[in-house]
């Protein structure tokens, strides 16, 4: 559609209405920026997303695996390879959520520039989270690919991991944005990393089943979104899908929606005086 300058400008009301909430053009514009940056950084991102699960698989899968051969019916290497998917998703979504938001907003003031254009906070936040979670979903496959070299068998269900990783990543990225919106300084992230994210990733059934935990801890673990992510990823990857997986997915979707709205609400309050 080419704009002809001779055509009179559309009536005012039409112009106002044309700008819907969550305008796809605004989302695409913000994400374009991330895509451009990613073209520069994809090598480093890909490198670390391959190396990290490799280290886990060597240290836990092979090292630990000499002590533990199976968890239930699952070989320990398979158990860890599928579990580490959630770790990869967590790290590739929560950290960009926190750091990118804080740096672009507070240091580079990029968000100030974007909000002076016809883009609302809701669109800005949503686009940033969307991009990070798409990336997290795709890179969530990396541990499985690494796992193939350690004896994990490919299975078509594994393609669903992209989707699960996307939903989980959406929630964790939004959580990161929320933290960035609350944090006074970038050092505050240390509290969240050590007190929230680290226990989350350890107590999620990644390296050991939470059924081995004392009752109280087990109950707490049920509230860990990562636990639900691990459970579904493992079931679709190892072809052991059960009805309970629907519940896990529901939890992940709810978590993502809740964090998304909270992130927008808090950052709106900080970005708009």
């Amino acid at each position, binding site marked *: *559609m*080419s*704009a002809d300058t001779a055509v009179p400008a559309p009536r*005012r009301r039409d*112009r*106002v209405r044309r*700008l819907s909430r969550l305008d796809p*053009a*605004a989302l*695409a*514009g*913000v994400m*374009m*920026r991330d895509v*451009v*940056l990613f073209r*520069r950084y994809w090598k480093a991102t890909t490198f670390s997303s391959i190396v990290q699960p490799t280290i886990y698989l060597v240290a836990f899968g092979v090292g630990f695996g000499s002590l533990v051969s199976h968890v239930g019916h699952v070989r320990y290497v398979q158990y860890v390879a599928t579990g580490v998917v959630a770790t990869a998703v967590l790290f590739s979504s929560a950290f960009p959520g926190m750091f990118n938001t804080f740096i672009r907003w507070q240091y*580079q*003031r*990029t968000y*100030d*520039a*974007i*909000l*002076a*254009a*016809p*883009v*609302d906070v809701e669109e800005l936040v949503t686009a940033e989270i969307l991009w990070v979670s798409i990336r997290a979903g795709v890179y969530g496959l990396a541990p499985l690919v690494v796992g193939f070299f350690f004896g994990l068998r490919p299975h078509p269900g594994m393609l669903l991991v992209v989707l699960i990783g996307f939903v989980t990543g959406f929630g964790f990225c939004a959580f990161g944005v929320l933290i960035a919106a609350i944090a006074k300084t970038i050092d505050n992230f240390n509290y969240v990393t050590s007190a929230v994210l680290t226990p989350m990733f350890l107590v999620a059934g990644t390296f050991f089943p939470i059924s081995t935990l004392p009752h109280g801890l087990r109950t707490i673990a049920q509230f860990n979104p990562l636990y639900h992510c691990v459970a579904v990823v493992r079931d679709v990857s190892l072809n052991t899908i059960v009805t309970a997986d629907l519940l896990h997915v529901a939890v992940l979707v709810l978590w993502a929606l809740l964090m998304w709205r909270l992130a927008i609400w808090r950052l709106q309050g900080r*970005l*708009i*005086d």
Partner: protein
Amino acid sequence: MPAAAPAIQLEGVTKRFGEIVAVDGLDLAVPPGVCFGLLGPNGAGKSTTMRMLTAQALATEGSIQVLGYELPGESKAARMEMGVVPQQDNLDVELTCRQILGVFARLYRVPRAERQEAVERALDIANLRGRADTIVRELSGGMRRRLLVARGLIHRPRLVLLDEPTVGLDPQVRQELWSLIDSLRSEGVTLLMSTHYIEEAERLSDTVAVMSGGRIIAQGTPAELVGTHAGREVLEIYGPPDRLTAVESQAIARGWRHRRSGPALALLGAEGLDGEAPQGVRRPANLEDAFVALTGQEIE
């Protein structure tokens, strides 16, 4: 929209940050097609006013209309048709000039078929065609400012907000930007420019509003402001500090309008002084005299 409708209209706008009143019952009407200068010392509320026009700050009280759109409800539609050049450099330092312009062409919804052309045009405006693929971090301060201006013009806005457009620039770059602003005005673009440089306001603005303490304390063409608030002539008296102090007490006693101006004491409206006026150098009054008379503040 009728031609006479103001491009920007503020009525009784107040903005409070907790206890601090940044903008205090501001009334402002900017007619279309002019360059309107908002002149004021630092802290007068100019930047807050600018931010309210893009709905990046919300007015505590009062109503704001931009290009006929009611803010903040319709601010997105208003932002479609206006460009913003912020005071603080907020360019994406990790991107190249071309990439930044490409991203903002999208954010401003320039149709796909026209994007390439818009980017090239903006590169020409910024005079950065030769550096199009250079990462912003590696550009000089002047180049970055030109890119900042071009970014705000990528979608051919009808209204451009310039917040202290030449602050911290060397004289040559400042001149370049002034020519650019002038050519925009001659194309019929409405410009609202905040500045604390007298010369900038005087040379570029059709109308100057002097802002102080969050409100407008005087408004008119630069010549009107000078005539009303500083008279036709100024008498500058030079001398040692005690001599100036003596003249100052005399001025106070006689009710002469005066101000300290660096090493001199300036008597405003000198054309009306009687024969008792001390010896000094007469010169035409300028906007700086009017500004200081109005705000009581010296400028840098």
